[in-house]
Structure formats: structure tokens, C-alpha cells
């Protein structure tokens, strides 16, 4: 085993290798028992100095784990069901917000329309209709007189009724 490889193992223990180097080293260690043994011992010394207690690890520990894993089902990536569940929750939330927004807007518009109608009604009813008619009549006396003074010729024979204006006062006294 080269000194360079040993130094890489030392750096690896201290997290001094970059990601690519660390992955490369770990892959190399799988097929190099001597290098793996060096990693075991360096690591054991490191742990012993930190814990003041030496623990010997079987050099074939990792192999034993992998042999036991041979019968295990394949580890699967994060369950898609949960990701779908999150998506459905998000959709439900979005739909709820949309409904609330529509309802709020609808209520807001209704309130505005009611105000406009009310204002329009109030503006329209500021002068009663009969008052407007009265005003019109007062300002257009001629029109009324024409109608009121119509007398059909031959009215005296009683065949044609005469029409009389409905004014309370004689027209001549108005102005």
C-alpha cells in the first residue's frame, strides 16, 4: 500500500478530502483489505484517544453486515405516496383558498351593488312624481289650456261634451 493512500485515509478521517476524493477512496477501500485494515486501525486509535478506551472492531464487520443484507429487501427511496399526499394537501389548501376568495369577492360586490341601488333610489325619490307633474304643468300652461279649451263645434247640441281643465285656479290668474 502506498504512502499516498495512507495519507488519504488519514485525511479522510479528518474530513479533509473533498466529496469526489472521499467517494473515490471509499470505493478503493472496498477492494483493498490492507487499506481497509489501515482505516480500521487509524479509526480505532482515534476513538481510543477520544474515549480513553480501546475497542477492537472485527476487520470483517462490514462484510458481515453486507452478507446479512443480501436477504433484505431493497431499500427504497422516499415513498411516493407521501409525496402525493403532500401534493393533494397542497391542492386542497389551494382550492379552499380559491373558494374563500370567490365568496369574499362575491359578498363585497353585493354590498357595493346594494349601496349603488340605494343611492340611485334615494336620488330618484328626492322629488315625488306628482310634484314633478305639478311643476311641469305650471311651466307649460299653454299645453294644458289647449287641451282644456277644446270645444268642438256644435257643442251646444249636447252631442259633444266640452272638456274643462282640471286647474283649481283660472288660467288667467296664474301669472
Amino acid at each position, binding site marked *: 500500500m502506498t504512502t499516498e493512500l495512507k495519507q488519504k485515509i488519514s*485525511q479522510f478521517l479528518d474530513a479533509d478530502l473533498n466529496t469526489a476524493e472521499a467517494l473515490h477512496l*471509499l*470505493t478503493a477501500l472496498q477492494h483493498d483489505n490492507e487499506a481497509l485494515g489501515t482505516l480500521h486501525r487509524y479509526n480505532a486509535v482515534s476513538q481510543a484517544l477520544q474515549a*480513553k478506551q*480501546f475497542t477492537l472492531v472485527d476487520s470483517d464487520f462490514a462484510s458481515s453486515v453486507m452478507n*446479512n443484507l443480501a436477504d433484505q429487501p431493497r431499500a*427504497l427511496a*422516499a415513498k411516493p405516496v407521501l409525496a402525493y399526499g403532500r401534493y393533494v394537501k397542497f391542492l386542497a389548501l389551494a382550492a379552499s383558498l380559491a373558494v374563500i376568495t370567490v365568496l369574499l369577492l362575491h359578498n363585497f360586490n353585493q354590498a357595493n351593488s346594494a349601496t349603488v341601488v340605494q343611492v340611485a333610489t334615494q336620488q330618484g325619490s328626492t322629488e315625488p312624481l306628482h310634484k314633478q307633474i305639478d311643476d311641469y304643468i305650471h311651466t307649460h300652461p299653454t299645453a294644458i289650456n289647449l287641451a282644456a279649451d277644446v270645444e268642438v263645434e256644435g257643442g251646444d247640441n249636447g252631442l259633444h261634451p266640452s272638456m274643462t281643465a282640471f286647474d283649481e285656479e283660472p288660467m288667467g290668474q296664474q301669472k
Partner: protein
Amino acid sequence: MKSSSKIIEQVDEQLVSLAQQGDKHAYNLLVIKYQHKIIHLVNRYINDASEAQDIAQDTFIKAYRDLGNFRGDARFYTWLYRIAINTTKNYLVSRYKKHIAEAISDEDAEIYAANQQSQTFNTPEQQVLNQEILDAIYLAIESLPEDMRMAITLREIEGMSYEDIAQIMKCPSGTVRSRIFRAREAIDNKIKPLLDHGEC
């Protein structure tokens, strides 16, 4: 250079992602990377090297089965650590040591471990060998040149980064890297014969 923890996270993320897609080779790399930490963690509560390794093995198998539910909200090691603690608790409960198991929780596991006496269930031979190796490590450190001894002590015992050690020792971080490696090599040369002799 990126911070150490960031690099560790990136390596783990890539390996976990591959393992989640069924790449057992990637999971093997994660086992290689974390086996010592997990075994050491379990050993704090079990104090039997053989049983501790069995529980650590269960931990890695459970983690593999549950890997599909790991979303990366926490670091992989934090997640693995919790599985190890729970597996250890279950083991202790099953061995009618409930009073010990209740003392362990994610929060106080470290405190509990720190307060534990080194009550050991290892065989006398194992105890002697482990103590002999520990003594050899300390002896090897004492015999190192001053600059290497300081570098390895600051790194392993104080947990300092290369950059911090470089500042303290007033030298480039490349020099620190080299000193730490040479210190490890010197210690390894002392303990390797003991480990080969007492291979278990």
C-alpha cells in the same frame, strides 16, 4: 476549501441517495465509514465487544430497511445514531435491564455514557489486550517528536481542525496534515503487532 462537516454531509448525501435506489455497494461504503463510531457508541452501554458488534450490525440492517424513510432532514449519522440508541435500548430491555435502558434517551445518552464506569463484560483476555493496546497508543504518542505529538493531540483529543492547529503551531495547514499523518503511522506501527497477535 469547504468546511469539514459540509464535505461529510455531501459524501453522505450521495451515498444515501444511491443506496436508496438499491445500490448496496454505496451502503457498504456507509457501513465502512460509520462502523467504528456505531460500535464504539453501543459499546458504551453494552461493554461486551462481541454483543456490541452484534447490536451494531442490527443497527446497520435496520437502517438499511428504513432507508427509504430517511429524507435528509437530519444528518445521516444523527439518524443512524438514533437507530443505534434505540436498538441498544431494545436489547437491554430484552435482557431485563430496563432500569438501565430507561436512563438512555437521545438527549442524555452522551451524559449517561460519560458517567458510566468502565464496567466491562469482556473476557479477562480481551480486557488485558485492550488495556495493553491503549497503553501502547499513549506510549507511542509520548515518544513522538514534539511537533507531531502536539498536532495529533490537538486533532484527536481537542478535536481541532487543521486550520486551527496551523494557527496555534504557526505553520501551514499542509504541514499539520503531514504531521498528523506521520503521527498516525508511528502509532500504527506500535499497535499493529499487538492487534495481529491478538486478532479476534
